[in-house]
């Protein structure tokens, strides 16, 4: 019994349900690392590139893979699930019990957040073991940037779920948002390899700022205050938008 926004029984139940979604597990937890492994197996991706400041492309793709898991989880995984819970009256049914439906929202965020962090660990481990990519040299700064990016992604997912009336719309909106998010995170072209002007513009987007912060921490520096501030700003803004627009029924 609980009246908090976090209910352990609801959380356990949502974890169990997530484990029953092979599609969700693949796209959030494995796909980013599979992509990293495919790119890493191309010989030229394992050669130092002066355009990347001497890094190998595979080095630059580890932070991208790390971000990819949380982007997919937040934008493609969570919104249809949450909107479906609202559309089919699951949130409403829960409103008639002493537990608030917000417990389901929190549980969803924790589940996708945990899956995204696990996905990041898998990407780092495979990068290290298979391609000898150095682990982040500034681990605390890396973790901070990663957590902020995760919060921004979950908040953006909550906004998408809030503005989508049906599961179908949530899926469509999520997939549409996914591509710009992936682009800014550097999936097609790592942010370091982007022309300066583009990199500056991308740096103002949540995942562009996250990519730059992660790169800095990977190289051993504390992530730039501007990038962290951009991430934190987006998180605050998106959370405010989600709590303003989210409807329980």
């Amino acid at each position, binding site marked *: 019994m609980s009246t908090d926004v976090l209910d352990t029984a609801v959380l356990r139940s949502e974890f169990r349900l997530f484990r029953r979604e092979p599609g969700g597990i693949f796209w959030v937890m494995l796909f980013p690392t599979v992509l990293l492994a495919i790119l890493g197996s191309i010989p030229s991706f394992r050669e130092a590139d002066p355009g990347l400041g001497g890094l190998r492309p595979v080095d630059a793709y580890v932070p991208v893979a790390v971000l990819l898991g949380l982007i997919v989880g937040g934008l493609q995984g969570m919104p249809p699930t949450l909107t479906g819970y609202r559309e089919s009256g*699951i949130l409403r049914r829960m409103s008639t019990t002493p537990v608030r439906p917000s417990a389901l929202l929190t549980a969803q965020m924790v589940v996708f957040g945990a899956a995204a962090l696990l996905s990041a660990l898998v990407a780092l481990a495979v990068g290290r073991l298979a391609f000898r990519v150095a682990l982040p040299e500034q681990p605390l700064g890396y973790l901070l940037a990663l957590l902020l990016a995760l919060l921004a992604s979950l908040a953006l997912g909550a906004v998408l779920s809030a503005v989508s009336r049906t599961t179908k719309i949530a899926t469509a909106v999520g997939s549409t948002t996914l591509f710009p998010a992936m682009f800014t995170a550097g999936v097609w072209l790592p942010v370091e390899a982007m022309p300066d002007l583009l990199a500056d513009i991308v740096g103002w987007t949540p995942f562009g700022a996250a990519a730059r912060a992660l790169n800095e921490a990977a190289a051993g520096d504390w992530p730039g205050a501007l990038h962290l501030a951009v991430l934190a700003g987006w998180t605050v803004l998106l959370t405010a938008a989600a709590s303003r627009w989210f409807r329980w029924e």
Partner: protein
Amino acid sequence: MSVIDVTDLRKSYGGRAAVDGVSFTVEEGEIFGILGPNGAGKTTTVECVEGLRVPDAGRVRVTGLDPVADHEEVTRVLGAQLQQSELQPKLTVREALELYTSFYPRPADWRPLAERLGLTGKLTTRFGKLSGGQKQRLFIALALIGNPRIVVLDELTTGLDPRARRDTWELIEDVRAGGVTVLLVTHFMEEAQRLCDRIAVIDKGRVAALDTPSGLIRRSAGATVISFTPSAPLDDADLNTLPQLASVQHKDGRITLSGTDETVNAVITLLARSRVTAHQLRVTDATLDDAFLDLTEATA
């Protein structure tokens, strides 16, 4: 002692009044029915009682609590089965029962409840694989799982086969025998007549009548129905002057009249005076169905 008090409840959607001044009181331990045609405002009314909707005006109290302001306390004493809702498709019946059990301070044991509702064989089945009737029975179990003082059942037996429907009625009678107050929304006359102590007939957002089932039947214009096959034709003029007559129908030589006990006596006198024999004479009470149609038409 009253456990639900609704006074002059009003709720509009987009300028259209769904509930337009509804008042009723439900006493502890009774089965109170809300009956009405589709779109009459039944569900909106009970959703205000459940605290799922905020009334535009009027007052709703559940055991003295405001379902909106004191929502959490109300959820502990009031169990609800909603007209339309789902659960996570991959959640099993057992997991759903255990999860909802964990929400309440003093829950019922879900095992006998599942047994009683015929769900024991379905405990490992996922919600998405259940039939409509099985889902319905699971929702009835979830409404009762918190050991509520009041249970609100909206379209209780919709989707159930006749057998499951009768079993469910027995369950509801048992629940009431255990001291639980039942607020039942239905459009099944048989269900209302069998279960309810009192019924509020709601039509176009207003209470058209509030009485016991037999009281409602007595009130209707054609509370008694007399039918017979006369041995010789009767004069329509004579029939039409019968006291308290509500309607006359001729079909295949058979005459069906509705009215009151007074009409019955007058028909018998008329038959005797006309020296006509009434074959297969039947006098029956009108059903709640007739009363319902009468009441909801009167306000049309």
